[in-house]
């Protein structure tokens, strides 16, 4: 459950992050590939080396979707319906991987936000990313 305060905090955080969507997205993915090599199996068709065009554009896509989710927290299911369908019917990513990327997004934000990444912000972000992951996995079965 997200309080009104937490929802507003999330909008503030992700509004700022939107300006750096490409770097944040690429860094999060890079961290995930380094820490959890099995996640690379989903990207065999792309060049995911550091600074690659694929990595940056894919990272940007992911973060912009998260930003959109933050702006529409009360209607996550409908806002992300197309992405839910994509992940369920086409990408078929094992849902445990959502946690791994969420964790790496949090680490990326922690490195960038430093002291501003307070425990309260951390809790709100963790809850939000979990809710997002749940929506993405909703249509799996």
């Amino acid at each position, binding site marked *: 459950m997200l309080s009104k305060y937490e929802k507003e905090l999330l909008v503030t955080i992700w509004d700022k992050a939107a300006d750096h969507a490409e770097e944040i997205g690429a860094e999060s993915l890079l961290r995930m590939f380094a*820490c959890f090599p099995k996640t690379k199996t989903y990207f065999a068709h792309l060049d995911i080396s550091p600074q690659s065009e694929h990595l940056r554009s894919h990272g940007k896509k992911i973060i912009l979707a998260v930003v959109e989710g933050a702006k529409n927290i009360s209607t996550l299911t409908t806002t992300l319906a197309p992405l839910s369908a994509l992940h369920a019917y086409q990408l078929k990513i094992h849902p445990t991987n959502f946690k791994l990327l969420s964790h790496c997004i949090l680490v990326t934000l*922690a490195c960038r936000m*430093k002291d501003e990444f307070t*425990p*309260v912000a951390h809790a709100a972000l963790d809850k939000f990313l979990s809710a997002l992951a749940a929506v993405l996995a909703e249509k799996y079965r």
Partner: protein
Amino acid sequence: MVVWTDAERAAITGIFSKLNCDVVGPNALARCLIVYPWTQRYFAKFGNLYNAAAIMGNPMVAAHGKVVLRGLDKALKNMDDIKKAYTQLSELHSEKLHVDPDNFKLLADCITIVVAGQMGSAFTAEIQAAWQKFLAVVVSALCRQYY
């Protein structure tokens, strides 16, 4: 047997040399209790855990956070056989404290995030990978004596 590359050893010892252990431990434990409130079940005797501010200001949480970091330091000093070094600690968590081992990972994630916040961009993907591997070994060692 865990095999550490030279780069991994260097990354992990490097992180410890930069850490202010008296800050990281308390910070990480407080975060764990705030972000994953169900972990508070193990700290019923710690007094006021009512909200984030109370948890962050709680002296028992802070003191215990330092204990946890000292435990991590023990793993660092016994990197080539963390399993053996942690036998008693594992028994303690299982037989005396009755901690659900799924919670170890949550505290480990909070420690990682606090380290990331302290190190900023110096906490590269490669260094994070080594650190996460180290914490995974620590968590696994803590889980060993659960029957």
